[in-house]
């Protein structure tokens, strides 16, 4: 009786940033060719769109960002040490959303999306099994 051990390799694919609308944080919504077998295009698009929407909300110039800037200045920026900014809250939401999506949708398909903050919002790492 012979036994062979196989450790499946994790392939990685990187979802790059979309800079066509400036340097605001946005990711390409195109499904990478490597994932065609595992994930449906519309499902993937929905997920990335949701992530992009959260970042768009985070980067939107609003009364809130203005107030945050002014308040920070008035309190000698000490407020940022104890209160999380709107952007940080949005990044938290993205992290939570990705974990949820992984659990519900992607991991059963052999795909795992990683938190973009790990790579400084430059790209999203996606691991998949062949």
């Amino acid at each position, binding site marked *: 009786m012979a036994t062979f051990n196989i*450790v499946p390799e994790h392939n990685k694919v990187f979802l790059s940033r979309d800079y066509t609308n400036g340097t605001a944080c946005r990711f390409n919504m195109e499904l990478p060719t490597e994932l065609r077998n595992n994930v449906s295009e519309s499902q993937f698009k929905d997920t990335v769109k949701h992530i992009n929407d959260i970042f768009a909300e985070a980067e939107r*110039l609003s009364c809130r960002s203005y107030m945050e800037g002014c308040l920070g200045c008035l309190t000698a920026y000490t407020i940022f040490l104890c209160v999380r900014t709107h952007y940080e809250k949005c990044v938290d939401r993205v*992290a939570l959303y990705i974990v949820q999506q992984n659990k519900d949708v992607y991991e*059963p398909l052999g795909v795992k999306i990683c938190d973009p903050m790990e790579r*400084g*919002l*430059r*790209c999203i790492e996606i691991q998949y099994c*062949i």
Partner: protein
Amino acid sequence: MLVGKRQLPFLLSIGLLIILSLLYFGFTARHLIEVHLLSGILITLISGLLFLFSLINFLVTSFIDPGYYPINTNNDEYEVIQHGISKSITVTGGATFSMRWCDECKHYRPPRSHHCCVCEMCVENFDHHCPWVDNCVGMKNYRYFVLFITSLILYILFGIGTTIAAIVLKRDSLLEVIVEFMLAIILPISLIPILALAVFHFYLMIIGKTTFEQIKSEDPSPYNKGFFCNLYLTFFTPAHPKYQKFEPSRTVRKQITTLERDRNVDKVPDSMDITCGPEVIVRVAAPTFNYNLRNGSYTSIGEKMNLYTQMNSTHSHTDSLATSDI
């Protein structure tokens, strides 16, 4: 912070700021209070606020994370075949930009970023490395840098004005005369380079470029959005949180752990044995993340192997399949 040769300009600048301020408050301001109590106190208050504001902005500029991109320790992003050393992408207005591979940080440098050779990190929206604040000036601290130089200019101008007023007014002690004359000479001299720097940075804000981009090329920047918008963006755009050692808030961390615990309840086994033919067992280890073996490709691996062993019924072929195909 380790004090070395690199920190000398920083210590010099902060020392100069504090020593000159002490002399100013100790002599000029005190002299003016003695001459006229109310206006003297008002002057001291205004200059004190300007001093505090510039000092705080100075410290924030030098100790905040300017927007360092984390170094990719896995080194797994290099795309040899598709992109190689530079990766072409489309940016605003349909212009193409080639993202250069950073050999130190192991990633493609995003637009507007640059590798700082002093900090040894790539910095988002790199402006310049300022030895006087001993930090890079980039995405996250550019606003504080501009606020620092602006408030410093106002502070120095205010200081020059009041010092001259104090000199004109009558005084008693010789020491006061010497110090006030010294201040009246040193302050205008120190004002000149700072004023030039401020004019340069306001010009850059008008044309929507960073210092680095301006030095590199004279072409207009595709990221320019007009003077007022640039100015507003500089001060009020919500900056990304620091990328290094970023941690989600405690509640979110808790929620994530709960989700992961739920997931582990029906966790798949660590490995799965697939019998291929009568004498061969292939033990496939589960990936580090949860992967549903029932409808995943593990079944297909088994089917493939069965087929293969049935066709060949030799161990050597299975061996080569196990190592090469999967």
